[in-house]
């Protein structure tokens, strides 16, 4: 199962209006080349799920700056002023989700759970429209799963089966996002043969990955 494809091929079936998850924390670990390829291809009215919107010129923020996002789920948008402007002027519909809840909602989507109970957000605006459930006298919010048409993530290394290894803090949301999309596309700094990654130290198993782009040798 060789999942390695060219970068144009990797993103070519992404359509206007699709829901995308994009990895990276303030663009640390963001799939910059995949995002560029997507912008080059031309796409709009995206629903974006990304913990922050990077900076104006990095990470998923590049899609915001180009006004390609219709609806955004994020935990923090303070580092990209354009996101705040679009939100306040009603151009983009922004749902702020606590960071831990966001990670868990994505995991629930990928892991086949119907939702989970958390105390995070009780007594705040995050409650709005959500079911409250009391267990053993404690009140929780029922948070529901998030899924996407595509996940775009970055890894330090991938093998042909799509097993991934991350470096440092670049993993962040990538691992959970990989599980929660119909099609997960990885930009890997290095692509190696099956067997070259120690199976004990795979961060994201290839079962969650559909396409791998060799970011070190991007050619389209």
């Amino acid at each position, binding site marked *: 199962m060789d999942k390695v494809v060219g970068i144009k091929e990797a993103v070519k079936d992404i359509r206007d209006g699709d829901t995308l998850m994009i990895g990276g924390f303030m663009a640390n670990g963001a799939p910059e080349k995949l995002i560029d390829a997507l912008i080059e291809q031309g796409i709009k009215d995206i629903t974006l799920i990304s913990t922050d919107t990077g900076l104006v010129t990095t990470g998923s923020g590049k899609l915001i700056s180009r006004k390609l996002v219709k609806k955004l789920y994020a935990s923090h948008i303070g580092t990209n002023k354009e996101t705040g402007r679009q939100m306040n002027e009603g151009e983009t519909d922004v749902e702020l989700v606590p960071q831990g809840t966001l990670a868990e909602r994505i995991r629930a989507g990928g892991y086949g759970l119907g939702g989970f109970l958390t105390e995070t957000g009780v007594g705040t605006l995050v409650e709005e429209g959500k079911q409250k459930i009391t267990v053993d006298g404690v009140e929780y919010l029922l948070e529901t799963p998030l899924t996407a048409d595509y996940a775009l993530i970055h890894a330090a290394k991938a093998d042909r089966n799509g097993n991934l290894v991350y470096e440092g803090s670049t993993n*962040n949301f990538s691992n959970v996002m990989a599980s929660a999309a119909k099609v997960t596309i990885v930009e890997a700094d290095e692509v190696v043969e099956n067997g070259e990654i120690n199976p004990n130290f795979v*961060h994201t198993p290839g079962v969650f990955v559909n396409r791998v782009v060799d970011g070190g040798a991007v050619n389209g």
Partner: protein
Amino acid sequence: MDKHELQEFIAKRVAKELEDGSIVNLGIGLPTKVANYIPDDVEVLFQSENGFVGLGPSQTEETYDPNIVNAGGQPVTIKPGGAFFDSSVSFGIIRGGHVDLTVLGALQVDEKGNIANYMIPGKLVPGMGGAMDLLNGAKKVIVAMQHTAKGNHKILKECNLPLTAQGAVDTIITEMGVIKVTAEGLLLTEINPEFTVEEVQEATEAKLYVDKDLKKMKA
């Protein structure tokens, strides 16, 4: 004290709250400075909510690594014995009560321990990031901030900005003193000798109870 000195003073006092062997998460801004003042006989492990434990000092030319940033996006290092993980694990650590202490800034705090620090509707909306999870999950919450903002009260009877969490704050540390949130209300336990109790009360909207064992605040 100018703003810089003020922040260092607060950070130094907060650092005394760190217990040996504890796991600590420091928020962005003033709280980050706390790491510079850890007592020599105290060993703490710092958690960075973007995905690791064992947060070390900023990078130098020798330790340059574009793959490691802290929760503020700044290049940092990891100490020997640290570990990286993904966001779901990171917030499992936070939500599950495995962080002993978190230090955060605030726009407003009130006498019930409510805190608002993530949005001013229609104006500034940075978002809550990991703050809601930290406030709910950490075993102890310290708010470290300047006592007032441009002369306006920040320690209120009741927050009027959207809350980040209900009843989550344990202690408030400012340049004027140390205030504990108790079931009876706000208890002033330490005071900066540069101020009188009356001055601190005047800078505080909520009623302050004064600890009968009121101590001098030392940074």
